[in-house]
């Protein structure tokens, strides 16, 4: 292989179409005879449907048909993809999530009827003419309140609103004993605020049915077309998978919210056959707020115990996770296996116990959002570390250095076995904090802070040293933990006769730049120009199989599958080359796109070998023609990126408004294929993490109405809310995948949130502010500073 592209900030191949307006998102696609769907949604969070009268709407000109819950009585709902059991071993409760509600709506925005019409305007007009009579019932939106006796029930069949309870870590008694021995205990109550992912492209689907071939096509703004096909065919509609093509064309951001199989995907697919016409549904932003899976929403009490030298002796946590009204595709995995397993953090905590209760409420379903469980774990740990440092009078950086797991590379030193099931692959946690402090200029900062305070300015610094589990994940492991799918990835490397290469990956790019970074890997491994490689993704008809993109897994898992296929190509290529060069394959070296007989200048290029494979006139006996290999890669372990994020904030003493003055991020995501893209991923994650800390938060009123349901009410970071980011990287390669990569998509959103909150607390601690609920709105900060 050559090293012409790997490690270089190659400009993105895909950009050309996006910057010229040629991107093709689902809503851009127009099919002949296409009709449009509009979904009438419940205005109530909890209500019994008494009657639905569609007669007036049906009579309107241009209305094709109207479906209601009755049409789906005998059709399954959308499934949950991960089974978690109660502590006592019984299976979690899995209510039906119907395509349209038949009897009782369970959150504001639950789908009640689908109007199909010639235009989207007519469909919307007709939806207004449907008359639904509801009996409004009391709703509950807070997970702890949902557990109280007498609370309104989300599902009448589950009399306590509990989806399941769960625990992880050391034996509870051992942890209690460790905590009893502690010299100092820091105890905090946390609310990890519910946030809305808000990818800029609203969800959009087109169902199409080809009568001649009895074949369905679903165009969908998804992060994983094959997974949607599997779930929809096998669990919902019961149609044979080979009769369904799922295409995820250009997708305008996902951040988790486009992983899941949504009801509307199945609705348009099903209706396309009923109507024998293509049917498109595109979400409004208001609908997106009500129906895209939300993120986070934990209520916790956490305690961290220390010995007299500041070493952690134990960690004890009780958390209530709000799962919303239904179990979304990965809802059950997020607060458990993606959260509880990260509570070791980067510290040597010897005893850990998490007790988790997952609860149904009359709210939109909650599922993985950028980081998924790991930000919640990091938030607990990193807030506890800063508050403990303050309480014990130890510098927060120093307290972290005291407790870091020592460096290990996973090759010469073994991986680190945590108390919460995982084995970290490799890590050097002190290195990222050291570099972060260096970039910050910590000593200078402390002087500046003292000076600022004298002038009445509230300057603060906050730290966060995080770890996450990415590259999800070994199928055997996740299977044992209840996943209902494998989590491998597939890749096909098809060498064309002219030596150009088409690569089919089951990973899916919705902004991450796979078409570039994957091509960099292929071009270098084969020693060919980048322009000779095309990455094809997102179409279940062309890509053999795929598990899609989430959990920062594309390069670690999908990239590794590509490398496996390339190895097969090179192995077979060597046989062809050896035949042509009349030597043994063992005598050949492959470099810079050609096979050379060792110690000679006799060589044959990759293109010649490719042509020979397809024009096998002079060809090894017993070797098949062609140069085209598929592989499946199932990782040996998760990957464990880590890093150090430091926020410097200034709080306006009069208004409580927080301004981010500096943000330093040092991340170690293993080897890096394209530094420019990795940095971009970090930037985006930081913005979302900072958004959660300062701006973003869902507010339901006491009736379950989402009162932050538009971009006018739900604040997200805009350009003038953020500073230029100061980023750097350290490199601790992943020891168990061929590229040594770990994943970078979620890191920014995991580390940054507690860093910001810690910084605000640092700025206002002397005013008596030690803890505050996110988002840290000016009003909240001002109240806390003034004890109001």
């Amino acid at each position, binding site marked *: 292989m050559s090293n012409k592209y790997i490690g270089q900030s190659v400009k993105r191949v895909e950009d050309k179409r996006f910057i010229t307006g040629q991107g093709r998102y689902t809503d851009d696609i127009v099919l002949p005879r296409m009709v449009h769907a509009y979904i009438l949604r419940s*205005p109530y969070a909890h209500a019994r449907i008494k009657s639905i009268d569609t007669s007036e709407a049906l009579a309107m000109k241009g209305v094709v048909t109207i479906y209601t819950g009755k049409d789906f009585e005998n059709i399954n709902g959308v499934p949950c993809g991960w089974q978690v059991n109660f502590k006592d071993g019984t299976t979690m409760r899995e209510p039906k999530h119907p395509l349209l509600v038949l009897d009782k709506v369970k959150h*504001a925005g639950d789908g009640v009827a689908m109007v199909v019409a010639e235009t989207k305007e007519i469909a919307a007009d007709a939806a207004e003419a449907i008359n639904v009579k509801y009996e409004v019932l009391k709703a509950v939106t807070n997970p702890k309140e949902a557990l109280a006796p007498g609370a309104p029930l989300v599902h009448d069949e589950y009399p306590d609103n509990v989806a399941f309870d769960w625990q992880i870590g050391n034996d509870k008694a051992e942890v209690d004993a460790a905590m009893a021995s502690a010299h100092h205990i820091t105890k905090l109550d946390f609310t990890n605020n519910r946030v809305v992912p808000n990818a800029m492209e609203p969800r959009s689907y087109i169902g199409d049915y080809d009568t001649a071939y009895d074949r369905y096509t679903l165009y969908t703004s998804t992060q994983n077309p094959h997974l949607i096909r599997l779930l929809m065919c096998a669990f919902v509609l019961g149609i044979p998978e080979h009769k369904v093509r799922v295409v995820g064309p250009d997708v305008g951001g996902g951040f988790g919210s486009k992983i899941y199989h949504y009801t509307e995907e199945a609705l348009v697919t099903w209706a396309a056959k009923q109507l024998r016409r293509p049917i498109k549904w595109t979400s409004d932003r*208001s609908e997106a707020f009500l129906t895209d899976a939300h993120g986070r929403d934990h209520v916790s009490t956490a305690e961290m115990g220390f010995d007299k030298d500041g070493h952690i002796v134990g960690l004890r946590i009780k958390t209530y996770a709000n799962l919303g009204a239904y179990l979304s595709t990965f809802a059950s995995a997020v607060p458990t296996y993606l959260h509880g397993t990260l509570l070791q953090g980067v510290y040597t905590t010897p005893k850990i116990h998490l007790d988790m209760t997952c609860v149904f409420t009359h709210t939109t379903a909650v599922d993985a959002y950028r980081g998924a469980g790991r930000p919640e774990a990091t938030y607990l740990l990193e807030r506890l570390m800063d508050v403990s440092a303050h309480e014990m009078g130890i510098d927060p950086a120093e307290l972290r250095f005291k407790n870091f797991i020592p460096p290990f590379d996973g090759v010469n030193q073994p991986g680190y076995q945590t108390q919460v099931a995982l084995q970290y692959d490799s890590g050097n946690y002190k290195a990222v904090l050291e570099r972060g402090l260096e970039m910050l200029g910590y000593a200078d900062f402390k002087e500046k802070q003292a000076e600022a305070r004298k002038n009445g300015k509230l300057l603060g610094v906050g730290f966060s040293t995080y770890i996450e589990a990415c590259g999800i994940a070994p199928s055997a492991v996740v299977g044992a933990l209840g996943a209902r799918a494998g989590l491998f990835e597939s890749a096909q490397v098809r060498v064309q006769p002219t030596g150009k290469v088409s690569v089919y990956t089951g990973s899916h790019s919705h902004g991450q730049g796979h078409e570039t970074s994957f091509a960099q890997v292929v071009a270098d491994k084969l020693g060919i120009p980048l322009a000779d490689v095309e990455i094809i993704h997102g179409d279940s008809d062309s890509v053999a199989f795929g598990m899609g993109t989430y959990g920062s897994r594309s390069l670690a898992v999908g990239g590794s599958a590509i490398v496996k296929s390339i190895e097969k190509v090179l192995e077979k290529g060597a046989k062809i080359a050896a035949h042509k060069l009349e030597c043994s394959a063992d005598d050949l070296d492959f470099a810079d796109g050609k096979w050379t007989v060792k110690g000679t200048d006799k060589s044959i290029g990759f293109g010649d070998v490719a042509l020979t494979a397809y024009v096998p006139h002079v060809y090894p006996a017993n070797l098949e023609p062609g140069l085209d290999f598929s592989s499946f890669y199932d990782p040996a372990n998760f990957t464990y990126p880590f890093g150090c994020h430091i926020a410097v904030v200034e709080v306006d003493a009069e208004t409580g408004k927080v301004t981010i003055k500096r943000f330093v991020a040092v991340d170690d995501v293993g080897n890096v294929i394209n530094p420019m893209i990795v940095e971009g991923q970090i930037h985006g994650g930081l913005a979302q993490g900072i958004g959660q800390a300062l701006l973003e938060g869902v*507010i339901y009123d006491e*009736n379950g*109405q*989402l*009162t932050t349901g538009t971009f006018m009410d739900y604040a997200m970071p805009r350009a003038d809310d953020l500073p230029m980011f100061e980023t750097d990287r350290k490199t601790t390669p992943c020891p168990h995948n061929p590229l040594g990569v770990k994943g970078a998509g979620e890191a920014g959103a995991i580390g940054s949130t507690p860093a910001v909150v810690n910084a605000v607390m640092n700025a206002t601690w002397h005013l008596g502010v030690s803890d505050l609920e996110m988002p840290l709105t000016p009003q909240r900060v001002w109240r806390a500073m003034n004890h109001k």
Partner: protein
Amino acid sequence: MELTGSHVLQAPVQKIWDLILNPEFLAKVTPGISRLEQESGDLYKAIAEIKIGPVHGKFEGSAELTDKVEHESFVLKVTQNSKIGNVEADIKMLMKPTENNETELSFDGVANMSGLLARTGNRVMSGVANTLTKQFFSNFEKELQNH
């Protein structure tokens, strides 16, 4: 949305009581109700056209007077449905005589919104409440002069 207000009206309690329990009068003074049609006893069909700022919608629903304590208090329950969302209000009305034989009319209740109104209205909801309160009493004063 919380609805509270109080105002001294220049008429004795008895007169205020009689007026306010007259559906025609009630419809005239209550913002958000333009017509009340008796359905049975104290239950009325309520029709409204609401124009507040950017919102202009036609509503239809019911109004019911309950928990009546003569010359003292009653509860007004209003349900209004529209294409842009529904409103359910539950308001306790209290009448207290003042020293100079006037009436302190006060009310206290909540209006729950659903649908688009709930989702898009937070920014202006307190303004709506204040405005409705002001309108109620100013309408009342105006109508009082005609009776």
